[in-house]
């Protein structure tokens, strides 16, 4: 089934034509309503009239997450504040969050895209879906929820944190689909197996996202739960989950090009790369009203495949993610930057001691360890003072990052020291 065949199966010419028109009107809108974009365009000597076709996009400046931070909270609004009906947020690189604002139409388009993705996974209005993403500032819960309601499915808003209740309701309510992170679903699978309940569930589909996962994890999920698992992609800055999703043919994640124009750029020269080449994914929101983003650099490294898919859709397909062009980590579905950990250390210790982050995946759960070298400035001969330092750092990291880290105090000169480009992180998960 295809949710919106008119849009999802357009010919390449039709897509390009629609994208050109939408880009032109989006650029006119941001030029007149957002000082940030107007200034940037004026510096480059561009006016909205210069943007007529989608190929003109290369003339436009890029937008980065630093721009979102600098213009927090309302600086990038393209509509009066009173038109905004919802905000979502993701943690920023330092203290302040990145705030994203949605108009009613933005919420509708988001629900449309999630409904497309769920239809792609095989869901219909007859399905019963448990949303196991967190509800709140994080886009996962509400995004999946509105999309499923739009589809007409029955939604059970589980949120996160109570696996036993999720399992009870999964069985009692005869749940047929679940939306959650892949690592959480494996955790649920383990709990079901331990209680001998796998045969009792009616689950058919899982729509998993919000963190990188491997084919091996997908295999495990499908075999252990006897279901089909689909990969959904999104980022808060652009919208949330539902920017792209894969179909049963698994040839990449179809990105909804009528709303999100994808480009692959060279992360250093910033030149647009030809179709099929590996580079940084950059997305322009063609229809977003509240906070449109022009050529937003996602920092995700991948490539795009065009050409009609066996499923009938023509929307470009995002290929396997090959990592990041920055130092962001995705831990338990949450974006974590080493600079956030530095910020937390700074608030507790006064300065940043030498530290090292180790991320691993043990029993399908992400581990997040932070080792800190104990310096004389905050050393004490009393155990409780050092234990307090350790727990204060853990609390500060939790506050800034949003997830808990295990902090360990180590002797000086035992962690790798900065040599030119500082290496403070080791990701042992091997997800790419």
């Amino acid at each position: 089934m295809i949710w919106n065949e008119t849009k999802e199966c357009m010919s390449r010419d039709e897509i390009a034509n629609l994208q050109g028109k939408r880009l032109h009107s989006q650029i006119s809108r941001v030029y007149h309503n957002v000082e940030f974009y107007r200034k940037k365009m004026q510096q480059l000597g561009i006016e909205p009239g210069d943007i007529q076709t989608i190929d003109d996009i290369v003339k436009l400046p890029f937008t980065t997450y630093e721009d979102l931070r600098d213009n927090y909270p309302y600086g990038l609004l393209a509509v009066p504040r009173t038109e905004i009906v919802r905000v979502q947020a993701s943690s920023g690189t330092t203290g302040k969050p990145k705030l994203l604002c949605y108009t009613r139409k933005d919420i509708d388009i988001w629900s449309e895209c999630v409904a497309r993705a769920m239809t792609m996974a095989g869901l219909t209005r007859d399905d019963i879906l448990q949303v196991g993403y967190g509800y709140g500032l994080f886009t996962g819960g509400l995004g999946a929820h509105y999309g499923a309601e739009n589809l007409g499915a029955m939604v059970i808003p589980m949120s996160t944190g109570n696996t036993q209740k999720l399992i009870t309701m999964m069985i009692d309510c005869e749940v047929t689909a679940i939306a959650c992170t892949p690592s959480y679903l494996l955790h649920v699978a383990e709990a079901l197996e331990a209680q001998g309940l796998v045969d009792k569930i009616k689950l058919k589909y899982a729509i998993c996202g919000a963190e990188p996962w491997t084919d091996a994890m997908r295999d495990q999920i499908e075999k252990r739960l006897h279901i089909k698992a689909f990969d959904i992609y999104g980022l808060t800055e652009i919208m949330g989950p539902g920017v792209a999703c894969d179909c049963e043919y698994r040839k990449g994640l179809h990105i909804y090009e009528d709303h999100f124009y994808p480009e692959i750029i060279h992360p250093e020269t910033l030149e647009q790369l030809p179709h099929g080449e590996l580079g940084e994914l950059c997305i322009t929101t063609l229809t977003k009203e509240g906070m449109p983003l022009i050529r937003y650099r996602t920092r995700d490294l991948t490539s795009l495949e065009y050409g009609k898919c066996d499923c009938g859709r023509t929307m470009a397909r995002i290929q396997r993610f090959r990592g990041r062009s920055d130092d962001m980590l995705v831990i338990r579905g949450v974006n974590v930057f080493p600079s956030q950990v530095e910020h937390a250390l700074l608030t507790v210790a006064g300065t940043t001691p030498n530290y090292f982050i180790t991320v691993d995946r043990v029993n399908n759960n992400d581990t997040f360890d932070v080792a800190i070298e104990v310096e004389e400035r905050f050393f004490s001969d009393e155990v409780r003072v050092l234990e307090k330092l350790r727990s204060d750092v853990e609390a500060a990291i939790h506050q800034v990052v949003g997830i808990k880290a295990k902090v360990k105090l180590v002797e000086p000169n035992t962690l790798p020291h900065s040599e030119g480009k500082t290496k403070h992180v080791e990701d042992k998960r091997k997800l790419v």
Partner: protein
Amino acid sequence: MLIKQLSVFLENKPGTLEEALKILKQAGINIEALSLADTSEFGLLRVIVDDPDKAKAAMKAAGYTSSLNEVISAPLRQEVGSLSGIIQKISSAGINVEYMYASSSSTSGASMIIKTSDPARAMEIISML
């Protein structure tokens, strides 16, 4: 009397104590009393030495995090209740004992090394015993 104690941060794993003691030995430092506090991940080596400043310098040169702290060395008579008497005086003055350990030497006999929340006042109280 109030004396200087050297405290050294160590990780709780094999070899760390040996390495720290070797540095003190090579610097010609004699250890008069020692205590090792441990948690699951780190340990604190606390020592009373003949030359605290030299010992601190040696640890620093070897890259260790250490500090010199003021502690009380209270001589203990070998009789029932002598330690209890000291601790009672300190606690009734509202002073907290952070940690303590025993020391003994052939010349000055047994004594207690006591770290309190207020070393100067605690010393004053003990002197009045």
